[in-house]
Every structure is written in C-alpha cells, then in structure tokens.
C-alpha cells in the first residue's frame, strides 16, 4: 500500500490537525498496522498517571462525610475536603463506596488498600504486592514510544523514597524526589529539544548501545541454573536494560515537533521538609515539570506519590504528625467528625488540586495536557482513624483524550476497587478485559464514565 503523502502529513490528517507531537516510532508502528493500541485510528494514545496520597478522607461511620457528594452523575456538589478540585471539577470523576475485599487475607494497615487497587489482590505481607502494579501494564501498552517508559515521582520527603509501582511485587520503582533531580532526568544533558532546528544524531549513542549488547549476549548463560524467584528478578533487570536501549534508540531519531513543549529552566534546590506546606509546594513544582515532560513527549506514563501510606507529614510547629492525629483525635459530637483530621485532609487535597491545575495549564492542541491524560488518584484507607479499607476515595481526572466522560460522581455500596482500576486501564487503551483475583476479580468497567 502506498501513501500519496509523507508520513507526518498523514498523521496530522488523522488527528484532524491537532498539533500534538508524536514521535516517529509510534508512526512506524501505526503504519505497519502491527499494534492494536491504535486500532480505532482516530485517537492519540493518552497519558496515564497514578496519584497517591496517604490517610484517606474523612467519612465517619456515623455519617459525617466530608467528601462523598450526595448527588451522583454529572454536577456533583463540591464537598469540603474536595474544595481544591473546584477549578477542574468538570474534568474529575469521583468514585465512592468502593472497597477492598481480602478473601480472608488480613487488613495490613496502610498497605492493603493501595496494594489491592494497584495489583488487584490483597497482599499477604506488608512489604510486597502479590503481583505487579497495573501501571506497569499501562507502561508496556502505551509507554514504549517515548524516551522514558514511565517516570516515578515522590513529593513526600519521607524517610525512604516512596513508590508503589512494581513489576516483581518486591522491587519498587526509584522515584525522583526533588524538582532539581526531576528536571535533570527529563531535561538534563540527554534531553533533545523536539523544537530545535539543528538536530543531529549523537554518534556516541551507538557506542553506548554496544555496551548493552554485550550484557544481553550473556543473558542465557546467566539464566541457567537460577531459581524461580531469581529468574523474575533477572527478568526485571533485563527489562530495565531494554528500556535503556529504547531510550538510546529514541535519541538517535529526530524528535517530532511538539507545539506545546517549552523547555523549562532548571529549578532551584529546596531544603527537605515534610511539613504539609512544603510537600504541597514540592508537589506543585514537580507537577509543573512533569506537565512539561508530558508536553515535550519525554514520557506518557507516571506514578506520583504525594504522601506515603503512613504519612509523616505534619503542620509546622505541631508535635503530632497527621498520622497520629487521625487515630488520636476524637469525633466531635456536635460536628460528627474529627475536625483537625478533616482540616488536614483538606490541606492534603489542595496539593492534588494544584497538581491537576498544573497539568491543565499547559495548552495542547484544542485542549490541555490534562485533557489528553487520565490520572487515577487514590489513597490507602477510607476512614483513617480505624484503618478502614471500605469507601477508599478514588478519582479519575483528565478527559483521556475525550474517552473519559469526566465530571461525574459514581457511588456503589461495597463493590471492589478493582473496577475503577480496570476502567482506568481500558480508558487509556490497555488491551485488558478483566483485572484482579478472587472476589476482587472483575470484568465490569464503570461504563457510565466511558465515552
């Protein structure tokens, strides 16, 4: 089959002139007709990200909810703890009433919730997942055409860098934790400006490729006589090698022009701090860089941690951290909820609002980066005081290139959290029909929000 025009003009035609950048490898795959991800032929692959914050939202058993809207469908009312989502409300769907079903597995506090949402199975131990987190499947499906398959970020300034993204269940991603480090990764010396006119392939890249081929040559010999668990770990190692090869291969191709890409300047390094205000500022600064990383086509998949499951964030000058307050603070009899905990939850959600606004601020084609993304946001618990894994707050933000009928509130009574996870995967084009195991196995996405 011959095309009577060049490949780029062809692609522009297919997306109705929307000036969004597309890297050539996508185009190659598209023209070869080998991929299924682009089967509908009219939509660009969207970006996908997870956003995690610790300690849930306030929803007391006595009914003092501070986040579940009473109205379902479009036009849900803004609840006090969701105040920060107001400016982007039409691009955010709220999911309430979803829960983790452990099938006899214990509720491992501050762990079972997000482990189940991401891996589809309640974990057996509190330091691992019983399967890969699904973002890795999304990255395999939509993340291979950019320099980075996935970018992991942790804004929390916790004791250890926090990531819940894993391919093996035991090794978790190494996140970028400061704006400066994220900047260097995305826009440092290996970055190639997609809008630069004098692009030349760097011959040293081919030499670096030969370094990796020597490693890969030995793969078979190394794998012989290795136990099962170690095979999984070596597989992950070689996956990482291939991702590096992919990065190098990308750098040998002239990047496609990206209209929305404006290369940012290097941010200043900031002192490490875990106060609510500092983590919020860190979240905002990291989100700004991430948004441009997406617009400049450096990655299409990300995982963002705002605070960890056992969040160590605190208000400056207060001796108790947020986590302690959620457990210790009594329910105010008049109000029907914990006032200080709820105030902190609202503050933590402000960072999520900031995050989305940063993605919405980058104009891209007829919309924004947020419009061409889908972000699944969730926490480790529902009502944190009692480590509840019922009614875990979950959100889908961004229009996913038009596939997400955003701005709705979906309420269920006790359905599995994995339904939201499955929906997210299908919205971004992962060829997957079901997700989860045991009672959390589901083949039913939430169709009312799918366009």
């Amino acid at each position: 089959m011959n095309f009577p025009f060049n490949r780029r003009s062809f692609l522009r035609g297919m997306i109705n002139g929307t000036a969004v950048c597309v890297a050539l490898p996508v185009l190659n795959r598209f023209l070869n007709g080998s991929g299924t991800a682009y089967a509908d032929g009219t939509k660009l692959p969207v970006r996908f990200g997870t956003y995690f914050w610790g300690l849930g939202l306030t929803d007391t058993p006595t009914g003092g909810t501070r986040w579940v809207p009473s109205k379902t469908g479009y036009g849900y009312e803004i609840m006090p703890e969701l105040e920060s989502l107001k400016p982007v409300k039409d691009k955010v769907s709220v999911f309430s009433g979803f829960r983790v079903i452990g099938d006899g597995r214990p509720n491992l506090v501050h762990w079972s919730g997000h482990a189940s949402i991401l891996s589809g199975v309640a974990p057996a131990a509190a330091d691992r997942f019983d399967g890969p987190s699904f973002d890795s499947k999304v990255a395999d499906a939509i993340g291979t055409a950019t320099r980075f398959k996935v970018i992991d970020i942790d804004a929390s300034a916790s004791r250890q860098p926090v990531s819940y993204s894993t391919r093996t269940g035991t090794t978790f991603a190494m996140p970028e934790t400061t704006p400066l480090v994220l900047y260097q990764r995305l826009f440092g010396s290996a970055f190639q400006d997609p809008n630069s006119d004098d692009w030349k392939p760097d011959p040293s890249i081919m030499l670096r490729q030969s370094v990796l081929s020597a490693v890969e040559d030995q793969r078979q010999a190394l794998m012989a006589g290795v136990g099962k668990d170690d095979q999984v770990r070596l597989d992950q190692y070689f996956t990482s090698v291939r991702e590096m090869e992919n990065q190098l291969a990308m750098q040998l191709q002239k990047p496609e022009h990206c209209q929305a890409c404006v290369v940012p300047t290097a941010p200043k390094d900031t002192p490490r701090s875990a106060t609510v205000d500092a983590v919020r500022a860190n979240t905002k600064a990291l989100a700004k860089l991430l948004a441009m990383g997406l617009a400049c086509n450096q990655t299409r998949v990300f995982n963002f941690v705002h605070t960890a499951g056992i969040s160590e964030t605190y208000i400056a000058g207060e001796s108790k951290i947020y986590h302690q307050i959620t457990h210790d603070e009594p329910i105010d009899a008049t109000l029907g909820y914990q006032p200080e905990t709820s105030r902190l939850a609202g503050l933590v959600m402000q960072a999520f609002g900031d995050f989305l606004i940063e993605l919405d601020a980058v104009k891209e084609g007829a919309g924004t980066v947020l419009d061409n993304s889908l972000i699944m946001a969730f926490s480790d618990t529902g009502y944190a005081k009692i480590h509840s894994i019922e009614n875990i707050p979950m959100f889908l933000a961004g229009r996913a290139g038009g596939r997400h009928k955003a701005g709705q509130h979906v309420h269920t009574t006790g359905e599995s959290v994995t339904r939201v996870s499955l929906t997210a995967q299908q919205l971004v084009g992962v060829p997957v029909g079901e997700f989860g195991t045991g009672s959390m196995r589901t083949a039913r996405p939430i169709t009312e929000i799918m366009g």
Partner: protein
Amino acid sequence: MGALVLAGALALVGITPAQPPDQPSGKGTPTKVALRRITESQYRHTIADVFGPGIKINARFEPEKRVEGLLAIGSAQLSVTSSGFEQYFALASSISDQVLDEKQRATSVPCKPSNPTQADDACGRRFIEAYGERLFRRPLTESETLARLKTASTGAKQAGDFYAGLKLALTSLLVAPEFIFRVETAEPDPANRSQYRLDAYSKAARVSFLLWDSAPDQELLNAARSGAIHTRAGLHQQLTRLTSSPRFEDGVRAFFTDMLQLDDLDNVVKDPTIYPKFNQSVSDSAKEQTLRTTVDLLVNKKRDYRDLFTSNDTFINRPLASVYRIPFASSGDWAPYTFPQSSERSGILTQVSFLSLFAHPGSSSPTKRGIKIYEIFMCLPTPNPPADVDFSRVQDSTKATIRGRLLDHMSNPGCSGCHMRSDPPGLALEHFDGLGQLRTMENGAMIDVSADIYGVKLVGAQGLGKFLHDDPRVPACLVRNVYAYGAGRATGAQDGDYLSNQTKAFASDGYRLPDLMVQIASSPEFFKVVVPTGVQHPPSATTAATVPLQKSGGVRQ
C-alpha cells in the same frame, strides 16, 4: 556416560540436542543459589579497591529494603528498576572515563596497544580479564570475555581510539548483572557428589563482604582459585588476614550501619521550629558518632559487646556538642569524650542517632523506641498493629507528658496488648526529646522515667542500659544478626541449635565481636547451600543435597 557418547556422536554429524542430556546421578550442574544486589557501600568499596580511592562516585542508588531487620536479607529480594539501571549506566560510564583518563591509563591498563588508534585484542583481553575477575569476583568465562572484546574492538574502530573501546568494555562489565548482583553458585561436592557446596569464589565473596564490605582482593581470589579456601587451614588463614587488616573496620561499620538501621539517618526530617539545632550535618555526625564509638569499643579495644549499652566513652564533633550541650575545645574534627554520670547517658541507646531516628519530626516516641529496642537488640519483632483496633474509643488525652497520654492508651483494652509491651523501654528514655537532647520536664510536668520490662523494674536510660547489658537475649541477637547478615538469609527455628552453640562460644570468648565473626565465618553452616525452588535444568542431585543439610538444621526454602 551413554548420554555423553550420544551427545558427542550428534555433534559429529552437526546436530545439537535441544536439551542438555540428563546428568548422571551425582554430577549436577552448577546451580545459582542466591542473587543479592550489592549495596551502595559495597559498590563504593569495590570501586575504590579495584580502581583506587580517587574515583569519584556521584550517583543515586536504588533504595534498599530491610527484611527481618536487615538490608542484607532484603538484598536477596531486590532487582534493578529502569531508573535504577539508568543510574548504574551513567555511573559506569563516569567510572570508565576516570579509569581510562589520559593520565590514568598508564597505571590502569596492564599493557600498551600496538597502535593506540586501533583495536588490540591481546591488550584488550588482558585488561578485560584482569578487571572482569575483580568485578565479577571470579574469572570471566571465555564467552563473557569475547562479548567485551567485541565491544572494545567495535568501539575502537568507530572512535579510532583503542582506549575509547576499552571504556565501553569496562562500562559493560560495570553494568553487568554479574557485577551488580552477587551471584552465589553451588557445585557438586567432590567429597560427596550427591551434595552441593558453595563454590570457592562464592565462598571467598561471602567472607570478603562480611569482613571488608567489599569484593575479594587478589589474595583471596587466589585462595579460591587454588582451592585453599575449601580447607580448614586455608580458610582460617584468610579469616585471620582479613580481620587483622585495618579494612576490617569497613566490614564492622557496614554491619552496624545495617543492624542499627543507621542508613535511615540520611533521610530523617525534624521540624525546625521544634528542633532548631537539627540539620543534615547533625544527622551525618550522629551516624558517624555511633560508628566510631562501636568500632573503637569492639574492634580497637576488643571489649565486651554488652559494654555498648553502658559505656559512655564516645567521640564528638562540633555539631553534636551543640546538641549534647557540652563544650567542644578540640582543634580536630572529632575528639574522644566521656559522658559524666549526671548526663544520664548510657551507651549507644542514648546517642543522638538512636534517639532521633526513632522519634517523630516534632516529638519523641516511646512506642517507636521501645519497638526498635526489642527488634534491633533483642531480635523480638513487634507484629503489625491489628487492623481491627477500635481507635474510636481513643479519646484525646489532656495529660502533659507522653507517658500520661500513653497510659491513657494502655487503659484501653484495644491498645494495651501492644503498648504494654512496646512502650516501657521507650518510656525509660523519655528524658531525651525527639532529637536526643536532655530534658526533665514536658509541658510543665516532671517526666517519670521508671519502667517495668517483663517484671524487671528499672529507672531511666542508665537502668535500661544495664538491663540490656545483662539480658542474655541481647548477645544471642547479635549472633543471629552476624550470621543472617553474612549468609544473607533469614534464620528460622531450624537454625536454633547452631545459633545457640555460637552464642555459647561467644560468651566463653568474653563477647568479643572479632572472634565471633571469625567463629561464624569458619563454621560449615556459614557456607550452607540452600538450593532454591524452580531451578532451570534442575540437577538430579537437588533433593539429595537437602537431606544432609536438614540434619544439621538449616534448610529454608
């Protein structure tokens, strides 16, 4: 035998069997029994040993994982993520650039190429084999060498520079899984071919990483090559050499950094409005103080391990002097110091490292401290809090001191089960705030530091130090930790007899750490082979191999 003949016949007619022929009974193929990602400090020590201390290592390393109290156990569960590999790759390139820098190459390359603008396989091979052996901790296979020679020659041709090719070959060794992971290999035991033993190079690495926190040096590799390490005398000679070297200190530091969880000090955050004296320099100094104290007491002075909980001989520097509120008059960076009785300090538990690590950003935490005292020093882990604790019954306490607030918790049946156990040792340390500064009052009330630990009544940090000094579980826990750290695996009930015998030997040697390390590293259990499940091409001897080991009590799948 028949199978071998058949294989030979097939080869003659140009046909290769798809599967390797079954090994005759008792002639199992080498089996990789463990794969442990090397730690950041092992990486740094190895690079300094192999290429010299001048090599700069500027990179972020992937987070490590503490399992059953030790990163050394967690290292056997870790892999390399894509961003982690990016870091290793960039670091490897930077190391190769430094090693083959124009000024360095005369010393780092063992030969001269016939023409520096072209590939030279003979010289390239010498370089690759020499450094490959140090980095992989065993001689390279011919195919491993050839793969790097190919890289070197391609690079030399493309760049018109022999050394550019070598850089690529060295980078390739430095990012190889055989370097980044410690691959421990077992082979059929020649004395009893139905059993496995750790091969000589894996043994050498185990000893070297335990005692020097680094890859084997040339002499140790030679002892592996000659097989001397398999003999009692040969092994003992190496153990004596390694523990007599000044580099034994590196091994001891690495062990205590892991056991005392001092690596976490790199990430501690404190609220500056509550602890204005805290900063990165204080937390770095706190780690160094504890390591200096420990090495001086246990290695230099060869004192009783239990003195670590009562001795107030330590070292301070200027940032710490400010936190401890003591004068610092030395002109050097560090100076020896002995805390007076009135300071209420008692050993390493009362140093800033432990006290600030196990606390909140804005307050102390008797619960965290208590849990860590049990876990780190007594090997008594605290189970995760049950999810069904009825926190709704917890009401805000108005008590001024943390003790008062915790006692309110303890009167709540949902909380008391754990807090009755975890809090008392921590309550004894309450005269030290979340940074480790001495105090006697909290919110205007006197702080009571009495505690009752399993019926033993004691008062304050000094009482707690004495309690730990005298509790037999404390040296037993150290024995377990040294073994688990060196062998890289969690211990279980089946190790009970072995550990108990080692603990007795430790006691009769006067609780000297260097003797304990040698004692453990000379025991056959230290090199015990545990064949993992699901080995590809399982050798026929797999099952047989586990039988005699079970008798000695140590197989853990």
